[in-house]
């Protein structure tokens, strides 16, 4: 039972979603269980979409300095 999807990676969320779909499609769930699966599936869907819509990815460049490796933001010309 997943309560917080906040820290789940895309891969974990998608895998969990696939498992729920399979469980539901196996037809062994009673109504309560089915509704619970449905709610979980919606949570996981939201998590996946949030990761996909994330525009906050970083593009950085490594720089070797005397104190070791540093990183700074990079924009291609």
């Amino acid at each position, binding site marked *: 039972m997943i309560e917080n999807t906040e820290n789940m990676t895309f891969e974990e969320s998608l895998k969990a979603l696939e498992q729920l*779909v399979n469980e539901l499609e196996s037809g062994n769930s009673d109504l309560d269980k089915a509704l619970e699966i449905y709610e979980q599936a*919606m949570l996981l869907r939201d998590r996946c979409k949030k990761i996909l819509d994330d525009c906050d990815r970083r593009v950085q460049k490594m720089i070797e300095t005397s104190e070791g490796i540093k990183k700074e933001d990079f924009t291609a010309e």
Partner: protein
Amino acid sequence: MADTVTVTQLNTRVKSVLSECSAVNDIWVIGELSNLKKYPSGHYYFTLKDSTSEIRGVMFRQSRGRIDFEPQDNMKVTVFGKADLYVERGSYQFIAETMQRSGVGDLYLAYEALKKKLESEGLFERSRKRKLPQYPRVIGVVTSSSGAVIHDIITTSGRLFPADILLYPAKVQGEGAAESIVRGIHALNREGVDVLIVGRGGGSIEDLWAFNEEMVARAIAASEAPVISAVGHETDFTIADLVADVRAPTPTGAAELALRDRRELARHIDTHVLRVNRSLSGILKTMHYRFGMLESKLDPKYADQKISRYSMRLDELGFRMNSALRSTAETVRRRFIKMDSNLDAYVPRMIDNGRKDLLRYSERLENINPVRVLDRGYTLITDMNGKALTSAGQISAGSEINIILKDGNAEAQITRAEMRK
């Protein structure tokens, strides 16, 4: 007495001295091209130099057809022709009649030798190729920070699965390039990137040479993160491409191999949600149906209808049982005629199946045996001759009836009977 000549005469004399001297005619000269200019007239002008000296050179349009490559600056060449003087300027130059690339043969030999060596070590084996991670968080890129490669990767990845990009700005050609690329592969692995792209844009075999060096090949092979190579054009095949887990035809292709399409993933998720919805509504429909059934079962209004339905089903089941047995027997007979092989095994099985059918039908019959129904509080009404009464039309006031209960009988007289409207 000393000659007195004009400038033109002097230049003309030197020109003829040069043209008569076999030491500077029809010779091969080794050097490196620079300041190469290709004129609209079709002539090539260039400087040919070595570490200490240089000479201007020209190759006329009509000679150009003799060379099978595109001359470029920094290319090592061997040029055939003669030394000459350009009279109008008094400048000394070399007139090239043909040109060959030098050193290239050596490079090909080195390439083939290394390829053979690494191949025998199994470094190109398909079984060594690792699968790329499906959803990487960070992609490491080893390439020049100014080339088209990093630009294309950043641009393309915008429409792909969102991942961070970490660039190691490497020297990708010339002295120290191989070392720089190796350092980049190591540094990005230490950063824990999920996948690596190693590459550069197109160029001559010399330009791409770092990617044919053994140390680069070994660094790629030893990389913890899977490596995508994107070196040169699609037609260039470097050792790095052979060792890499996947070879991309272009930098854009490399980004597409590393990251899955964002919209395609969104569609994939939607499909899952659709399946959940479909299953759930299926379950709800079943629930409705079962609830409806339960409701009708509980309603006393339907109780008598049910009894007659039971008796009808009794008849029907009896009939079906008979015909099932008959058709089983018929099937067995037909099979018997048709195939006498396998019969020994077949007939007993058919008989067994028939027996099982019979058993199953008997069980079902048992379930709807009226006596069982009596267990549940229903009664059976017959006339005094034991004929079942199912219709109000069969009785009237004063009729005597027999009521069969679960555990006994009772006789009664009808006081009133009427058909239900």
